[in-house]
């Protein structure tokens, strides 16, 4: 990590320069400099200043809604978010160059140590964005597709290569399956969606999926496409294609239902948030502030959709400047509030946090020293 610091620093320079330029452009209109921040945490409107974040591109659409909502309530605050990628966000947070990061994966043990050093205390991680990952496919004549976890895994592992395979037929007794070859479409760039999708396959069927959990597609077969929109485009254009993408991006493509317990569940926001109630916190961490979730992908409860992406925001429990601390606290409070979650659901099609999770997250955010 140290070795790459030069390139990261160069990148950061560019980013902060851009931020500074954007800032000065806004500053002129607001007639207020970025640094003058006033009274602490006395409800929204008295806040001012600039809050910079970086990280997950999956949160980008939701972040646009949060930025709009928060800045409307606090007209003299500017929130900047650079969707540079989860790893880049975590790295910049650990380097202390951004006060908050968005990440599709919680901090690894090593990162947690480094971040604790940066913050001066264990960082706060709260889930803010939960979204179902849809298995999308394009197979003319088949409008409804049901897949058991093993079948799904075998398809993506390249073990089932034709649509009329007996395993698929067994899951779909009433469908007329053609003999078309299956083309699996995966992300060609590193991605939190791939990370969660491979985690799912790894948990439900590790005999067929032997590649573990990884954010870069590990197999040298199938079709690669850049970004969520690239996957959706490739699935749409090909025949006999199947891929995975954020549910909100699936558009008019058909989505497969996944077998959970004894029934098949289609991706939906409600089914996605249900699985969180069944999941446990990641062990070995202080669950009150570090709310990293080990998603229970193997749940058998009816109506649960376990193929989800959980994205976090990572903040420090204390900051050197109290103005930053107040900004972070107010912003995160808004993000996990029912208003913030509803705004994200509307803008990005995410599953709002359940009120229990929302309250738990709020309790963690309250520990930020203002």
């Amino acid at each position, binding site marked *: 990590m140290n070795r*790459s610091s*030069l*390139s990261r620093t160069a990148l950061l320079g560019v980013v902060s320069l851009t931020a500074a330029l954007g800032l000065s452009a806004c500053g002129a209109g607001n007639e207020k400099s970025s640094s003058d921040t006033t009274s602490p945490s006395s409800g929204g409107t008295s806040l001012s200043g600039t809050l910079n974040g970086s990280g997950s591109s999956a949160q980008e659409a939701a972040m646009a809604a949060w930025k709009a909502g928060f800045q409307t309530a606090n007209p003299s605050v500017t929130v900047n978010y650079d969707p540079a*990628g989860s*790893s880049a966000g975590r790295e910049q947070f650990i380097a202390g160059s951004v006060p908050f990061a968005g990440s599709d994966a919680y901090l690894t043990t090593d990162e947690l140590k480094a971040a604790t050093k940066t913050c001066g205390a264990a960082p706060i991680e709260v889930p803010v964005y939960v979204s179902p990952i849809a298995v999308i496919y394009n197979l003319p004549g088949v409008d409804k597709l049901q897949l058991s976890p093993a079948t799904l895994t075998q398809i993506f592992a390249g073990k089932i290569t034709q649509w009329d395979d007996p395993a698929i037929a067994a899951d779909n007794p009433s469908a007329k399956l053609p003999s078309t070859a299956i083309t699996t479409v995966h992300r060609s760039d590193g991605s939190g969606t791939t990370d969660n999708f491979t985690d799912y396959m790894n948990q439900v069927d590790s005999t067929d999926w032997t590649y573990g959990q990884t954010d870069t597609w590990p197999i040298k*077969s199938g079709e*690669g496409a850049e970004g969520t929109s690239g996957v959706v485009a490739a699935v749409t254009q*090909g025949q*006999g294609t199947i891929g995975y993408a954020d549910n909100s991006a699936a558009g008019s493509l058909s989505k497969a239902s996944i077998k959970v317990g004894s029934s098949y569940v289609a991706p939906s926001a409600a089914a996605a948030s249900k699985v969180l109630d069944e999941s446990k916190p990641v062990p070995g961490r202080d669950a009150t502030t570090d709310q990293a979730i080990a998603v229970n992908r193997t749940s058998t409860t009816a109506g649960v959709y376990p193929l989800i992406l959980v994205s976090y925001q990572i903040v420090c429990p204390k900051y050197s400047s109290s103005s930053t601390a107040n900004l972070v606290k107010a912003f995160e409070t808004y993000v996990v509030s029912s208003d913030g979650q509803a705004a994200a659901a509307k803008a990005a099609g995410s599953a709002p946090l359940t009120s229990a999770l929302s309250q738990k997250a709020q309790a963690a955010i309250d520990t930020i020293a203002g």
Partner: protein
Amino acid sequence: MSSSAAEVKNRPPRQLGDRVFKGLATGAASLILIALAGVGIFLTSEGFPAFTASKSQIPGEVTIVAYIWPLVFGTVLGAAIALLIAAPLSIGVALFISHYAPRRLAAPLGYLIDLLAAVPSVVYGLWGIFYLAPRMTPLFLWLDQHVSFIPLFSGPASPTGRTMLTVGVVLAVMILPISTALCREVFLQTPRLHEEAALALGATRWEMVRMTVFPHARSGMVSAAMLGLGRALGETMAVAMVLSVSGVVTFNLISSTNPSTIAANIALQFPEATGVAVNVLVASGLVLFILTFLINFAARAVVNRRKEFSGAN
């Protein structure tokens, strides 16, 4: 007397201008060298840790050579296809503009070709994904069914059309303007007397082109092709968007599994890369840097060797 006095009076300011301009020109020239050296030093120092890293630290748990080799292969393959398509095409287009087209048609056609160079590569990427790729699919299916005994078309055909061959076509369109513009310029510089002499000896127009224009322009055509090749090697966005990458090494041009290219791989993997993975990407950038250098040197060598035979002197 008075005129020489005026000259004397005029000299100092002219000298100042000379000196300033010389300084500016020298500064600009050395700035290029400094920038180039800076890039080289950055790539070497940041890429170096990747060469000493252990297997487990490199993405995919392979050696650094095994990681970069498929990328080099893909980079060269894609650029070679592009050059194979674009070189004859650009020579033809340039020849048409310089020697065949009526003047009224030649100029607008030249502008149109130049305009292709102004299209951003992201737009070429979108065009590749949404327009070209679906229209290539039937061709791939046909190739797979009828000539799959040729290793290049061994299939199975990609159902989406996002293959190395499609990328080659996109890259060919991208390098067409620069190659065409250069070819056109050198074709136009053929000595008029040579051409007229050939025609006077009874040569047809094609014979005239073959006897006078091509020998004269040979080195120019090589540089045009190499400039195009340089652009194709480094193209990032269009390749990253269009190509379905898998990290394999294969000459099969029509299937879904293709080798990635160095530039596209950096663009795709950098946002989620941490630690040594970043060094590995920089190291692959260093390899591309060296590759481009080698190709440019080779091109220059070819041009220099041909110079005395070209009739340009």
